[in-house]
């Protein structure tokens, strides 16, 4: 059992969720309440990572942020470190790849908030921020929580991009999924079996929590 890899995956998933939480709230709310020209295109962009193979994104990341690329140089200049083959690089990849999992459920959550309530809030003189905090989020949070749980669980299962831009460096980019892959190739079936079982348990738990939450919300709203 590769505990370093499991801890790395949990940290990666944690950072992904921390970064995606505000993104999901802002974008989800925006897409739920606003109508504008090209909204379909924006929503399509958000959903793109769902259909694109990770290799496409891994290739772009390798080319765009590799050595000798302007973006790679800029990042190196700003942070003194390479983006590809680093933990930060995995976080960037993971955030972009989880956009649909974070924004979609949050958007559904905000859409479920009755328009009369929001109008009442603004009529009472609440600022949009206060309305978000005291009226919308308390009603929409199960959607936001679902978004975060899905992003977390999905990050644990990320494989293709990490394989392409990670380099399987222990403690830096060797996630649990990569470690399982390495174990299988190293004929360590026992290690692969244990780690796979841990991942199955984790993912099952996350999805069960999500279903349980949405069921509760469904009851409350009906």
């Amino acid at each position, binding site marked *: 059992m590769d505990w370093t890899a499991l801890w790395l995956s949990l940290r990666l998933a*944690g950072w992904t969720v*921390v970064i995606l939480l505000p993104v999901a709230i802002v974008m989800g709310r925006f897409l739920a309440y606003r109508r504008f020209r090209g909204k379909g295109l924006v929503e399509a962009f958000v959903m793109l990572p769902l259909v694109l193979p990770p290799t496409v994104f891994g290739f772009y990341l390798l080319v765009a942020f590799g*050595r000798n690329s302007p973006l*790679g140089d800029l990042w190196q200049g700003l942070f003194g470190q*390479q983006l*590809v083959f680093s933990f930060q690089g995995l976080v960037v990849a993971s955030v972009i790849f989880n956009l649909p999992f974070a924004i979609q459920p949050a958007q559904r959550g905000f859409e479920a908030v009755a328009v009369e309530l929001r109008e009442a809030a603004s009529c009472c003189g609440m600022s949009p921020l206060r309305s978000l905090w005291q009226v919308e*989020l308390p009603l929409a949070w199960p959607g936001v929580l679902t978004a975060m749980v899905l992003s977390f669980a999905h990050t644990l299962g990320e494989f293709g991009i990490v394989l392409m831009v990670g380099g399987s460096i*222990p403690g830096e980019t*060797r996630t649990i999924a990569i470690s399982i892959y390495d174990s299988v*190739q190293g004929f360590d079936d026992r290690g692969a079996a244990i780690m796979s079982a841990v991942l199955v348990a984790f993912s099952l738990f996350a999805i069960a929590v999500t279903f349980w939450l949405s069921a509760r919300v469904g009851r409350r709203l009906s």
Partner: protein
Amino acid sequence: MPVSRFRRFVLAAALACGMLGAPVVAQDDVPVIAAASDLQFAVTEIAAAFTAETGMDLRLSFGSTGNFARQIRAGAPFEIFMAADEHFIADLHAEGLTKDSGDLYGMGRIVVMVPHGSALIPDEGLDNLAALLAAGGITRFAIANPDHAPYGMRAREALITRGIWDDLQPFMVLGENVSQAAQFALSGNAEGGMIAYALALAPEVAARGRFALIPAEWHDPLRQRMVLLHNAGPVAEAFYEYLQTPAARAIMTRYGFDLPEGE
């Protein structure tokens, strides 16, 4: 009250964020060695001996030589690169990405290996493979991807020499590197495959089947070379030296990596 539940959620989220700030084991000073996957068992053993002897830690990363070369060009922070084929080192050296031209550490050999219970019998001349192929008894045969994995390239050369490359095409499964090819070959879903001698000699792999060494003249020599990369620190340099000591050489020889005469 939904509001209080929401507050609890915020509190839990804040706690979870706090956990992320927990100190992480600092491993930045532990060098990463990128090694071709045929070295999976040999180098793991040498690294363990090195750590036991010197107390210095290493991080090992195994994969396809071609993929590592690509990652080194993109700036991967490896400190030593042990390639399965010296051409990759020569190219990196020409691009100024290595400290020097490196050192030869062994000659790679390929074997035909079959899992227990396979209809295929491994033999040096691949006669049984040719016969079984002609009789329609082959459904799957595994090699490493000959586009970028050195062991795949040599397997292709050997099969071309034997004259059965074209006939084998419909049944070929390609591993991303030679370890994966070995996994495919011995999983029981294929009649067999061509893999690295060094892997076939490892107890974990040897227990799964039988093999026969392919004549070295059937393919270009697989000259395996290692090199220090520019960001190599003192630990990487010590390990690089250790790899050339008699103790490390003895392990390499046990895994079939002989050095050519006079080198």
